[in-house]
């Protein structure tokens, strides 16, 4: 009975399951998941300095620092900033009132394991058309970015 054993249909299914299991185990063994996990998305940290003293026509810069919580380096490929909200209802978070200009910095930038790097600066410009209601307003910027692991 067992002399000429060959995988039947069920056998092939079982074989496929074993293969997938092996692949998964191998991947898990070789690539341990980073410690700080958010759901199934890995994250790194960004910090943007606050800017003050803006008036019509003024340009300021917000310095961006990226922090790598992982035990391996990451390469930050992209950083974005946008005006999110303001502290005054009649001062809308629009390009008429505040603009985030170009990013001054070299991307991609490599952040060492568990280290941090000053990635560059975002230019913030208050146009002359800014509403009078924006006097003393605080604009909130949201800075986001993406990166990839390096050498893994």
């Amino acid at each position: 009975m067992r002399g000429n054993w060959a995988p039947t249909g069920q056998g092939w299914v079982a074989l496929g399951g074993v293969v997938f299991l092996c692949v998964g185990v191998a991947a898990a063994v070789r690539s341990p998941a980073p410690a700080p996990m958010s759901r199934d998305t890995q994250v790194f940290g960004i910090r943007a300095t606050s800017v003050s003293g803006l008036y019509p026509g003024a340009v300021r810069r917000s310095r961006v620092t990226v922090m790598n919580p992982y035990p391996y380096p990451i390469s930050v490929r992209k950083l974005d900033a946008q005006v999110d909200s303001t502290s005054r209802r009649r001062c809308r978070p629009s390009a008429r009132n505040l603009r985030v200009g170009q990013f001054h910095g070299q991307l991609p930038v490599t952040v060492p394991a568990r280290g941090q790097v000053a990635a560059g600066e975002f230019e913030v410009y208050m146009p002359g058309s800014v509403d009078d209601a924006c006097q003393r307003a605080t604009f909130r910027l949201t800075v986001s970015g993406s990166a990839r692991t390096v050498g893994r």
Partner: protein
Amino acid sequence: MKRRNAIALMATIVGGAIVAGSGLTAWANWAVSATPARGTVRAEQMPAVTNLAVAHAGGKLTFSWSGAKFASGAAVGGYRVESTGGAVVAEICKTTALSCEYTPKGKPSGTFVVRALAGSTWVGPASAPVTVVPGTKTGTGEQAAAAQPPVTGDVPGGSAPQATKEPAPATPTVTPAGNDSEKDSGTVVEKTPDSPAATPEKTSPAPAQPSGTAEPASPAE
């Protein structure tokens, strides 16, 4: 033999899968996104203009004031002198300099303030008002005006003007300029008190929008 082949095949597949899986993982780059960070940008506030002064010579009013700066030290974009008469606010002049001239059609009179400007919409608070009042026939007003320098609208460190120089004769007897030519000769330049009690008629107690006791400085002749 077949069994041996099957086992060998299975071992090859499993081994290959392990090698391939681990190798692919090792070569892969994990995409990492960032937790969005918050930054804040704080806008300035328009400063008030200080030391507004009005000089009257030859039927012409010359306004001057001290330069205003933002808290960060940047200069404002310009200035606007306004004539305030009750609810009516008229622009007298607009400039980037620290002075401007104005020649009214009639005899010079009125209450004036200056505001700082920036961009196309930012307007600062009004300076302390300065009132130009036509003098009286008695000559005291004329002498006072001739003898004394222009009066500034506010003092350093405070926005409340001091008492008037010639309270009795020069106060808000705002006469229609065109029908009292005798009073043209004497003009008193004086501060306008913020207190409503000092300006009995047509005054508003609101300090931010001081309403003048005189009509806008463009009376019909």
